[in-house]
């Protein structure tokens, strides 16, 4: 079957703060938490975004305004058309009756949110951002054990999510830690998990083209982030040499993550 972008009308735009907005579409998609869609703005570009809200007939995508594409995306209005391909990727996996912890940095809460909502039973959520204003979905997970951290202490605990995770691990035997956020943060989370023999799932980002495992733009080590990922488990992460080290630019050039995350600002 043809898988061209399907043009969907934006039903609602929820502005979380001046940099974050969620675009909602009244459209059913088959979806596993952690999967992403490719959003196309005609004549601009097409980029991958995690599905951050999902119900039978509706889904949402939360965008952080950073560059050329995302700034336009957050400025869209209800009624505007956006092309959608997907969902793509493997999504998170889950064992029933597990005691799980979610660790999100900034926009990293986006892929975790539908997972949090779909996992039954006891769960710990650790969510961080630079400041109060950047904390997404604040009332969304009421009922769960939620810990907030901000870099500036403007909401919740002052400090990093990794500190909060270390604390939580001291008091809990987690079966699985799910994390998404800046790669350096995920690396620290993973290291903590390894030290405590806790399994971990991370969600990676790389430059993407096809979204279905053919073009090789998104490779991280020997894995294709678009189909082998974006979610990777401890066992894979251990052999994922490029994790928190290397990424390919649009040209295919391999660079450090620092260079990768700044090239586009040029």
């Amino acid at each position, binding site marked *: *079957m*043809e*898988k*061209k*972008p399907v*043009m969907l009308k934006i039903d609602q735009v929820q502005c979380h703060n001046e940099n974050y907005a969620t675009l909602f579409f009244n459209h059913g998609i088959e979806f596993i938490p952690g999967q992403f869609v*490719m959003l*196309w703005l*005609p*004549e*601009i*570009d*097409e*980029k991958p975004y995690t599905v951050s809200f999902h119900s039978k007939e509706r889904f949402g995508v939360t965008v952080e305004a950073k560059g050329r594409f995302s700034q336009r995306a957050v400025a869209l209005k209800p009624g505007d*058309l956006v*092309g959608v*391909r997907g969902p793509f990727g493997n999504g998170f996996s889950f064992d029933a009756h597990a005691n799980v912890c979610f660790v999100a940095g900034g926009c990293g809460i986006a892929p975790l949110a539908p997972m949090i909502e779909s996992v039954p039973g006891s769960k710990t959520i650790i969510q961080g951002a630079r400041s109060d204003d950047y904390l997404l979905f604040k009332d969304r997970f009421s009922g769960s054990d939620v810990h907030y951290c901000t870099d500036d202490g403007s909401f919740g605990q002052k400090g990093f999510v990794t500190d909060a995770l270390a604390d939580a691990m001291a008091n809990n035997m987690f079966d699985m830690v799910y994390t998404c956020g800046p790669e350096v943060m995920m690396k620290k989370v993973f290291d903590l998990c390894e030290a405590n023999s806790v399994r971990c799932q991370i969600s990676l980002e790389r430059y*993407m*083209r*096809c*979204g*279905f*495992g*053919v*073009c*090789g*733009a998104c*490779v991280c*080590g*020997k894995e*294709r982030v678009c189909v082998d990922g974006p979610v990777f488990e401890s066992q894979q992460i251990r052999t994922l*040499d*490029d994790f928190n080290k290397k990424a*390919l*630019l*649009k*040209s*295919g*050039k*391999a660079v450090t993550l620092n260079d990768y995350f700044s090239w586009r600002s040029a």
Partner: protein
Amino acid sequence: MNVNFLGKQLKSPTVLASGILGNSFDILERVHGAGCGIVTMKSIGPAPRDGHNNPTVIDLGHGLINAVGLPTPGFRHMDEEWEDLEKRDFPLSASIYGGSVSEFVEVAKFVAEKGPDFIELNISCPNSAKHGMLFGTNPESSFDVVSAVKRVTGQIPVIPKLTPQALSIGEIAKACEEAGADALCAINTAGPGMLIDIESRKPILAYKKGGLSGQMIRPIAVRCVYEICQQTTLPVIGLGGVTTGRDAVEMIMAGATLVGVGSAVKSRGIDVFSTITRELAQWLEDHGTTLEEIRGAAHG
């Protein structure tokens, strides 16, 4: 399933098509591990190039359309990758392109020193207005670029990759043979085509036009390989839409020595190389025959 190709022993007659996955050492190694006989790198160009904006690759169900636009770090900016590749234990083909004969020569000379097992000349990429298209649709320019590259590549076999857009691909093949090509690869993407999104009224691909690949182009690829084998005696890597062992048999009966695989990675995963190899071997066994015996059989 061992095959000898231009003096190299391959573990499978399958070849990874250029531009499919081949962006880094790790993934090339994985593809080899998945049963691929020769892995081809993404085409390397003379200068850094981002390629086109997205959308660049769309799944049409019966094939793909793409206008990636020849992104490349540029041959001089891949030191780390060349280092990794030197340590490889698998047959590697380096695909290169240029916008002029001298650019082809410049890239070829540099790349040859890195010691790939084969150098593929992408004289057929439709996704860039400047790069390559002209060469592969014209026998004279094909001759020029191949003979010039041959002068700087020493012992490394040179494999021009041809486009089905040529009015007579057989003539292009002959020109390449006369210019000293060691083998040929056919085909690059067909078309080109265009998709228009009727809601936004815009072409979907950022570059508007893109090359067609996958199952829908197999009949074109088979015809091209057949015509090439009528005109030359060079070994041919038959590429275009090969998805199953039966497709590989068809390509080999058209005259191919090896079969390239690209878009089928989408439908059958990276293991498509071992899968096709196994299906091909099984077919040969069931029919009590060999690769050599069926090669070119459809010409009989």
